[in-house]
């Protein structure tokens, strides 16, 4: 069993141009007649609506089950539902089985036609200007990661729905066993990293620095290993307290000195493991146990500091923001950060929703992250010093209303219009600044040693 590439359709991005139909008809039937296209655009309805329809290559395809001729099969290697011309009797019962408009009877051909992913390089995706079609390899990550050793033990003990497990398992698998892990006070040590009775939950050496000295200790470790001739990755998995607040002086110093450290800040916007107190990264208006909501107070009165930009201005080798909800994106950033940490300081700021402290159901962890990205509350970007360029890795041109994100969380439940607008403006302003940097680049930073 393996993960398959999929043709992902983003109907909200489709503009109905029909280029995909033209390209498909051309490549599949060498004609301009779009009736031969395997992908179809919905057009001409009163209320503008564009949603390309195409075979979903179902896991349990009804078309396959309803074929009396055994002409349709699910290819277990590629995931594509394949049509065998020699066996097909053109009865079209498959079109009755498919609930997704994925297989059509073509009267001139007198057979059914369906998408076959062009053998792994779909033509429609190449011509889709608004990027409504995507040939996704997202699932590939799990296939690749499945081959690597899981460097955390079983039975991690986190709150239900916690993002931590997916985050740390993916991170350590990717970075590999030649790693020393620093886990300062925060949720992660409790979840497993420092373990119990002298045994850690990790299969790599890990240690428990103070909240204040994580980056400094890692810097020393990296230097020591280098001196004895070992290339060991110095990895920090620190909370926002251990990175942005209490741990900031050592972090700032290490980054400024260009220490060869990979520092990952797991930002759950507060001191969650000690009882959900506010931190420097807690957003404006948030309920926390130290910024309560009642007759006098309405949550946090100050804005969060935007830590990723602060780190960008430290002249790091690599700075990125990431979420586990877009795991492919996260892995690409891990890879770049890992390489960069051999040259200098690499920093990834991971937005990590806390079911307990933010108050949302445990099964919504991924959804909360996606809404945060889609509303531009937490834009995804990366900066590479080698190019001096900042790049949005998942640009959101038409952000959803910020309420779509805020309304998912109990900690924002009390917000009024004005407060919501304030959060929206803050988010907009951050994107504006990031776009300005994206446009101008940081040329002098690139040249700096």
């Amino acid at each position, binding site marked *: 069993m393996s993960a398959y590439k999929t043709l992902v359709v983003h*109907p*909200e991005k489709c503009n109905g141009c029909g280029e995909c139909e033209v390209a498909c008809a051309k490549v599949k039937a060498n004609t301009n007649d779009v009736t031969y296209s395997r992908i*179809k655009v*919905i*057009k*001409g*309805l*009163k*209320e*503008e*609506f*564009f*949603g390309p*329809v195409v075979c979903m290559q179902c896991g349990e395809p*009804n078309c396959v*089950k*309803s074929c*009396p*001729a*055994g002409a349709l099969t699910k290819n277990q290697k590629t995931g594509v539902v394949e049509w065998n011309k*020699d*066996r097909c*009797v*053109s*009865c*079209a*019962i498959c*079109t*009755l*089985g*498919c*609930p*997704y*408009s994925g297989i*059509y*009877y073509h*009267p001139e051909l*007198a057979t059914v036609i369906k998408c076959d992913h062009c053998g792994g390089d779909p033509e429609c995706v190449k011509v889709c200007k608004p990027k409504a079609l995507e040939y996704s390899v997202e699932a590939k990550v799990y296939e690749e990661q499945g081959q690597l050793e899981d460097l955390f033990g079983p039975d991690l003990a986190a709150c239900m729905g916690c993002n931590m497990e997916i985050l740390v398992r993916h991170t350590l698998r990717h970075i590999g066993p030649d790693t020393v892990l620093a886990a300062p006070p925060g949720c992660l040590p409790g979840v497993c990293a420092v373990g119990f009775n002298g045994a850690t939950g990790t299969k790599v050496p890990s240690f428990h620095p103070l909240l204040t000295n994580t980056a400094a200790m890692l810097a020393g470790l990296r230097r020591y290993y280098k001196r004895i001739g070992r290339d060991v990755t110095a990895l920090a998995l620190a909370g926002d307290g251990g990175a942005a607040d209490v741990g900031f002086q050592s972090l700032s110093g290490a980054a400024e000195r260009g220490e060869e450290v990979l520092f990952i800040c797991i930002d759950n916007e507060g001191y969650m493991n000690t009882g959900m107190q506010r931190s420097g990264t807690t957003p404006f208006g948030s309920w926390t146990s130290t910024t309560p909501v009642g007759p006098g107070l309405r949550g946090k009165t100050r804005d969060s500091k935007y830590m990723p930009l602060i780190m960008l201005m430290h002249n790091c080798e690599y700075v990125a923001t990431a979420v586990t909800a877009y795991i492919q994106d996260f892995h690409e950033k891990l890879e770049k950060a890992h390489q960069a940490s051999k040259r200098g300081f690499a920093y990834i700021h991971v937005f990590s929703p806390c079911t307990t402290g933010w108050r949302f159901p445990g099964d919504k962890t991924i959804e909360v992250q996606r809404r945060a990205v889609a509303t531009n509350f937490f834009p995804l970007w990366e900066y590479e010093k080698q190019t001096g360029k900042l790049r949005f890795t998942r640009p959101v041109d038409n952000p959803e209303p910020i309420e779509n994100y805020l309304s998912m969380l109990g900690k924002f439940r009390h917000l009024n219009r004005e407060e919501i607008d304030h959060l929206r403006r803050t988010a907009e302003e951050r994107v504006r600044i990031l776009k300005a940097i994206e446009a101008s680049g940081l040329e002098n930073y690139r040249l700096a040693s």
Partner: protein
Amino acid sequence: MQTKYLIIGSSHAGLSAADEIRVHDSDSPLTMISMEDCLPYSPTILPYILEGKVEEKNVYLRDEKFFQDKKINFLRGKKAVKVDPSVAKVELDDGREISYEKLLIATGSEPTLPPIPGLKESPYYVLRTMEDAKRINAAAMQAKSAVILGTGLVGMHAAEALGRKGLKVTMVELLPQILPGYFDAEAAKFVQGVFTKHGIAFYLNNPAVKVESSSVTTKISLKEGQEIEGELLLVATGVKPRVEFLRDTNIQIEQGIIVDEFMRTSQENIWAAGDVAQGKDFFTSKTGLNAILPDAYEQGKIAGLSMAGDPAVIMAFEELGQELAFSYPGGINRNTFNFYGNRSFSVGLALATEEDGYEIDKMFFPGGGVYQKLVFQGEVLVGAIGINVTLDPGVILNLIRRKVLLGNVKSEFVVKPLEMSRQLMWSHWRGVAVKRN
């Protein structure tokens, strides 16, 4: 011998159940019995074998490797002759007994013979098994003319196939129209016209009353007095569940084996699925047969889930109640029919009329060979017929099954059913609801 799961029958329902059982229980002994000594195939393919559209070697739904890989003990050429639920045993025609823990009866259906004097004594053919198809093909090599009793899908398919082989084909129907199960009078008339154009003769509303045979031909006398002759007589007047071997059990049988939402019969540890089962109807509170391929694999799947004790069925049933469990939604009549280069489909209450209280929208261009009928009950689509129209029958089926409220898009749906049904698919079951501002 002993087995945990025993499946009698190896067509769509049986195979679908086996697939499902193996998803949830990959090891327990699973035995499948087929009365024919060949790999599994679909009876639906048989008219296409007559037509020569596909070779016999290319129609089998599974190969030997499948049974090895899935650890299924496949007994071919064996017929179950007796079931004894009290001791959980099935007896085969070779005298062997099989003890089961869970039994699925998926024996399908067999042709019915109308009570016409002389029919049984005359040489006639039916089309239900691979052997039948081979026999008809052999006979068609010699014959110059054929008479077909019955104008259902099997009869119509056979008529086209035999007509294409050069036989003079005459069709006899008891009812006033052809394809009475799927098409209303207008659609049926159009289809009949196409067949007539291709030389097929019809006698409708005019049942056969007597069959006589000589050494070469068979003579059929009709109610209105006509006498027609053919060298090949094919009886295609319908099918009935193959339940004869269950007669002396106490499994509840009416037209077919009575089953509940999980395809369970009245007897513990016995399930039934496919043509043989009499399950609930989607539109009414009644039960009935729905002897069609798409229902067979769905019922088989549910039976398989239920037999293997899948949580989707069992837990949901216990914790959420019947409505929310994965269960049989009720049979919806549906089929596709392609004939002489035309395409058609029928779904749901396709025969409904305005007199029955339904709202009907029809589009008919006989010249262009186009017919479209949409049947609504209030704001919900309940049936459709399409001849040479571009629609997605599967999407239409789901609009019906999900009882999608059309609301204020109904008038546009009538004009642009293809586009609108695709939009409704997006917003109701394909995932994200999308609307452009």
